[in-house]
């Protein structure tokens, strides 16, 4: 199920907010011209909705997230842009027809584990790598 962006409570801390916690991880941060900048959005994969809870023991689902938004010039620091993406967005500015903007895609993925019964009633715990988007960026 894809949910609309929701405001997340930032923990009170004296340190500088972590780049991922800058406005934009969940909030609707827009570029100067109102378009939404590249960032992570919530996406929950529900094993319950898939009707799998007769063999999946845990979890009932997991937050996978996805990346979406504009990689338009100037690429702010919170967009995790590669040097190449910065150059590409410059060239796009000059030749929009010839060169596209950089893509908003995951820059860091993490694993998720699933505990389930197999057909012989053995119980299996499997770690699946690269299943959860931890951060997005312009590539």
């Amino acid at each position, binding site marked *: 199920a894809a949910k*609309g962006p929701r405001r997340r409570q930032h923990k009170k801390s004296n340190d500088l907010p972590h780049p*991922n*916690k800058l406005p934009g991880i969940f909030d609707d941060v827009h570029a100067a011209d109102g378009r939404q900048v590249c960032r992570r959005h919530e996406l929950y994969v529900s094993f319950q909705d898939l009707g799998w809870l007769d063999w999946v*023991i*845990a979890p009932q689902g997991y937050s996978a997230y996805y990346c979406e938004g504009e990689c338009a010039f100037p690429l702010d620091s919170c967009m995790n842009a590669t040097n190449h993406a910065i150059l590409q967005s410059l060239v796009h500015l000059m030749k929009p027809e010839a060169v596209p903007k950089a893509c908003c895609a995951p820059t860091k993925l993490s694993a998720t584990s699933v505990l389930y019964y197999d057909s*012989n009633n053995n119980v*299996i*715990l499997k770690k699946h790598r690269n299943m959860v988007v931890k951060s997005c960026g312009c590539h």
Partner: protein
Amino acid sequence: SGSVVRRRLHAAGFLQRRLSGGERRDVQREILAVLGLPGRPRPRNPPSARGPAAAAPLFMLDLYHAVAGEEEAEEEEEEAAVSRPVLTGLSTQSPPPGSVVSRADTVVSLVNVGELREHRRERGPYWKEFRFDLTQVPAGESVTAAEFRIYKARGVSGHSNSSLHISVYEIAAEHYNRESDLFLLDVQDLHAGTEGWLVFDVTAASNHWLVDQKYNLGLRLYVETADGHSVDPGSVGLLGRRGPRSKQPFMVTFFRASPGPARIPR
């Protein structure tokens, strides 16, 4: 093909397309493939028909929470540079997780599919045998550790003050007219009054699983007193398939994916 695609507004204001039956099956098959499953497992008895949880699922649920907790700790550690929380001891009821948990890609707990007890015919030693079906060994992964777990309750025989010597063998080969070929895997010496889960390292047995495609593993357990007398394993409190479900013996095997393409191209 003219199939009516009904769109409806999802609560969050996004259009949601209703999938056709075929599309739903494709979606499930695709997610199962990502999860590395050839198809949708069909456990023999659905959750509602299962009695109280057996030992293996209880152990594996503890393992799952330990691993999930570690994954979250890694995330928090990266976000806020917080020190990694130490895995605290788990309830004495369930056995502690294996030591190679966090590096494993797959952990398989195998239920004991068969059990045999030797009755002393010609003054031979007592023993107890356990059978495991290894057909679910994940392809393309190598074994990093394998443990045989058996619960020891307080014994009924008169050995309560002595110490016991317990040894576990792999049944390497069985013969019709003579004793099986045995391969020693692990031994433990403990006080007869000990109670709780005993963990035997049977990793050495895994050498044959993948090479010889030997998928029927037999383990044989012997118990002796300090002065070498053979003792019936049941009489000193070692529980088998007739014990309570939460204390029945099982095996746990830890696998690590061998380096190769992250996902087999299709």
